[in-house]
C-alpha cells in the first residue's frame, strides 16, 4: 500500500533522505523510528506529496504521489506533528468541511461525525469554537478528521503529543483496530514503547538512511541485543554512526 523506490531528498547540500526503499502492505502497522533530525518528517512529507523528491518515487495504493496526487490523496490521511485547524469553526463544522473536501455525501459525513465524536469523546465540544479547545482535544479532533473519509493509508507524525493517558489509549486502540480491518498505518514516533506495543514492523532511520527494518524479533536479532526495543534501537543507531554499518536485511 505504501512503496518507495530510491527515495532521496536534498536540502541544499544536506541529504535528508538517502535512497529509501520501503514496502508496507495492506493493513500493516508500521512504526518509523529515528533520532532527531534523522529524516522521518521529511520522509512523511515526501510520502504525502508535500515535498518533491530530489530522486526516486513514492507510491500510495499504487499511485505515484507526484504523478497522480489526487488519486493518491483520496486514499490517504495525514496527521502532522503540528496540525492546522480553523480556530473559528466548531469541531462539527470542521469535520463537515473536511468530508466535503473529500467529496463525501452529507449522510455519510453525519454518520461518520457521530461515530468519531463518540469514539474520541468530542460530543461535549461539538459546538465550541476550536480556539477554545485544549491541546489534547484539538489533537483528538485532528485524528478524528483524518479518519472521517475512511482512509486506506494513515500517516501520523508523533501521535501522542499532548494526549492524556485515556485519550492516548483510545487513539492506540482505534488505530490498531482500523489496521486489523485493512487500513495501513505509518506511525512516526520517538516513543519506543508505542512502536513496540503496536507495530507489526519497525523501520529505523538514521542520517536519512534506513538502517534496519523488520519485526521486533528481527530487529533484536539484527542488533544482537535481546532486550527491549530501546536497547536494539540504541545499538543499531550507535553502530551506524560509529562504523557506517550498512542496513541489515531483516
Amino acid at each position: 500500500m505504501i512503496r518507495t523506490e530510491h527515495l532521496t531528498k536534498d536540502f541544499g547540500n544536506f541529504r535528508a533522505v538517502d535512497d529509501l526503499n520501503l514496502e508496507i502492505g495492506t493493513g500493516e502497522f508500521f512504526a518509523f523510528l529515528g533520532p532527531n533530525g534523522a529524516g522521518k518528517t521529511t520522509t512523511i512529507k515526501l510520502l504525502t506529496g508535500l515535498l518533491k523528491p530530489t530522486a526516486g518515487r513514492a507510491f500510495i495504493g499504487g499511485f505515484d504521489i507526484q504523478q497522480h496526487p489526487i488519486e493518491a490523496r483520496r486514499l490517504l490521511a495525514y496527521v502532522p506533528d503540528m496540525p492546522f485547524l480553523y480556530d473559528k469553526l466548531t469541531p462539527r463544522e470542521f469535520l463537515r468541511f473536511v468530508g466535503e473536501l473529500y467529496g463525501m455525501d452529507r449522510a455519510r459525513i453525519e454518520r461518520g461525525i457521530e461515530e468519531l465524536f463518540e469514539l474520541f469523546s468530542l460530543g461535549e465540544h461539538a459546538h465550541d469554537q476550536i480556539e477554545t479547545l485544549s491541546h489534547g482535544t484539538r489533537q483528538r479532533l485532528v485524528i478524528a478528521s483524518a479518519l472521517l473519509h475512511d482512509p486506506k493509508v494513515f500517516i501520523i507524525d508523533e501521535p501522542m503529543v499532548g494526549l492524556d493517558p485515556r485519550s492516548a489509549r483510545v487513539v492506540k486502540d482505534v488505530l490498531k483496530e482500523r489496521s486489523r480491518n485493512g487500513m495501513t498505518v505509518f506511525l512516526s514516533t520517538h516513543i519506543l514503547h508505542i512502536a513496540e506495543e503496536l507495530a507489526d514492523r519497525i523501520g529505523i532511520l538514521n542520517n536519512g538512511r534506513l538502517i534496519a527494518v523488520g519485526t521486533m524479533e528481527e530487529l533484536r536479532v539484527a542488533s544482537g541485543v535481546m532486550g527491549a526495543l530501546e536497547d536494539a534501537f540504541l545499538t543499531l543507531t550507535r553502530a551506524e554512526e560509529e562504523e557506517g554499518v550498512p542496513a541489515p536485511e531483516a
Partner: protein
Amino acid sequence: MSASRVLGLLLALYGRMSQRRIQSLRDQSRLMLFVIGIFVVGYWIAAYVLFRSGFGYLLRVPGLGEVLMDRMLYLFFAFLLVMLFFSNVVIGYSTLFKSPETGWLLTMPIRYADVFRWKTVETVFLASWAFLFLAAPFVAAYGVVRDAAPAFYLKALLLFVPFIIIPGGLGLLVVLALTRFLHRQYFKWGLFTLGTVLVIFAGWYLRPVDAAQLQQTELVQSLNQLLANSRIALQPLLPSYWMATGMIAWGEGWSGRGLFFFLLLVSNAMMVLLVCSVVSQRLFYESWSRNKSQGTIGTPGQVFHRNLLGDSNCTWLERLMSLWPGLHPATRALMIKDMRVFWRDTSQWSQFVIFFGLLGLYVINLRNVSYDWNNQHWAGFVAFLNLGASSMTLATLTTRFVYPQFSLEIRRLWIVGLVPYGLKRVVLEKFWLSSAWSVCITFSLTCLSSWMLQLPGWMTILFCATAVLVSLGLCGIAVGIGALFPNLGSGSTANRYDNPAKIVSGFGGTFCFVVSMVYIALVIAAEAVPIYFSWGGNLTLNIVVAWLFVSLLSLLMILVPMSLALHKVSVLEV
C-alpha cells in the same frame, strides 16, 4: 471535485468565520466596536471634506480646472496600482508559502491549481480592502464635484473589481517567479531590489526643476510643471489609466466610453487570471516544494547577513551594541534578539520599508513642486502637513510593530520571565529600542523636509524637536498600552497568538491607534494654532508656550501609560 465547488466551500467557510469574528468582537467589547465605528465614519467624513475642498480648489483654476482634477484622478490610481502591486507581493508570499493552511490544503484531494486559485482570492482581498476603504471618500468627492448621477457610484465600484485583480494577479506571478528561481533567503532582497529600482526610477522621473523655475511664482507655470511631472500617469497601457478614464467618462455621463474602459479592465483582469492559472499549474507546486526544500547557503550575501545579524560567534551587531556604554548585558541581549527577530520576518520589515519608503519619496519630491518660497505661511503649512504625515505613519508603525511586542514576549515568559532580570526592564527595553529607531527615522525625515522647504532656522528646530517628542510619546503609548492591554488570543497556551498582525487586531491595538491619533492631532493643533493666529504678533512667546504644552503632553503620554504598565508587570501573574 470542480474548481468552483472548492472555491465555494472555502468562501462559505471564510464567510462563517468572519461572521464569528464580528460576533465575538461585539460580545467581547461593544466599546471597541463603537471606537472603530467612530473612527471609520470620522475618517470618511474628514477625507471626503478634504478631497472635496481640494477638487473644488482645482476646479476654480481658470481654464485648467478640469484638466487638473482629472490629472489628480490619473495620479491617484497610478499610485494605487503601484501600492496594490507591492501589497499583493508581500501578502501573496505569506498566504502562499507561510500560511499553514496552504500546507494543509495541499494534503487534501484537490488540485494544486484550486489551492492557488483560493490563495489568489485571499491575497487580493487582504491586499486590497484597506486601499478601497481609503479610496472610497476620494471617489465620492469626485462624483459630487462632477455632479455625477447616482449610478456613477455603483459603476465606480464595478470598475474597482477588475482593477484590483490586475495588480493582484501580477503580484502573485512575481511571487511565484521569485520563489521558483530565487533562494528563499533572497526573497526579501529581491523585493527590496525591486522597491529600490522603483524609487530610483521615480526619483529620476520626478527630477528637480532648475533654479530659475524655482523662482517662478506664476500659478500657471507651476501647474505646467505639475502637469509635465505627472505625465507618466497618462501612459495608455497602464490599468490605472483605464480605471481613471472609465471613471471620468462615467462621471461625465459618456456611457459608451466608460463601458469600453470597463470592458478593457475586465478583459485584462481575465487575461491575468488565465495566465495565473496556467503558470500556477506549472509553477505553484514546484515553487512550494522548492521553498520548503532550501537549506542554508553560503553566498557572499548570506555570509554578510550572518555576520551582521546572527549565527557567527560574535556578529557585527553584537560588536556594535557592545559599544553602548553602561548597557545591562540582559538589555543588550534582548535588544539584539528583537532586532534579529524583526529582520528575519519578511512580512514585518517589508511593510516597514514600504511605509517609510513612500514617505521618503514624498519628502524628496517636495523639491519638485514650485512653491512660493518667499511665502513662509505656505511653506510652514506644508511643513505642518509633513509633520502630520510623518507622525501618522509613525503611529501606524508603532501600533503595528511596537504594541504587539509585550504580547509576544508573554509567550516566551518561560525564558524571559524566569531570568533574574525582571519584566519591568523588559518593558523599558522595548521603550528605549523602539524610541531609538523611531527618533532616528522621523528626525531625519523632518530635517530633510525642512531643508527642502527652506524653512527658517527657528521653524526647523521647532519641527525637529517636535518630531523627537512625538516619537517618544508614540513609543510610550504603544509600549505602555501593549503591556496594559496585551492580546494573548483565547483558550490554551497552544492557541495564543504569535503573529503580530493578529495581536494588533484586538481591543488594545485599536485603542493604541486611536490614542496615538488623538495625541498627534493635539500636538499639531497646539503648534499650528498659535503660529497662524499670531502671525505678526508676539510669535516667539506663542511658540515657546505651544512647545512647552507639546512637551508636557508628550511627557504625559510617556509617563502615564509607562508607569501604569510598569506597575502592572510588577504584579503580573501569568
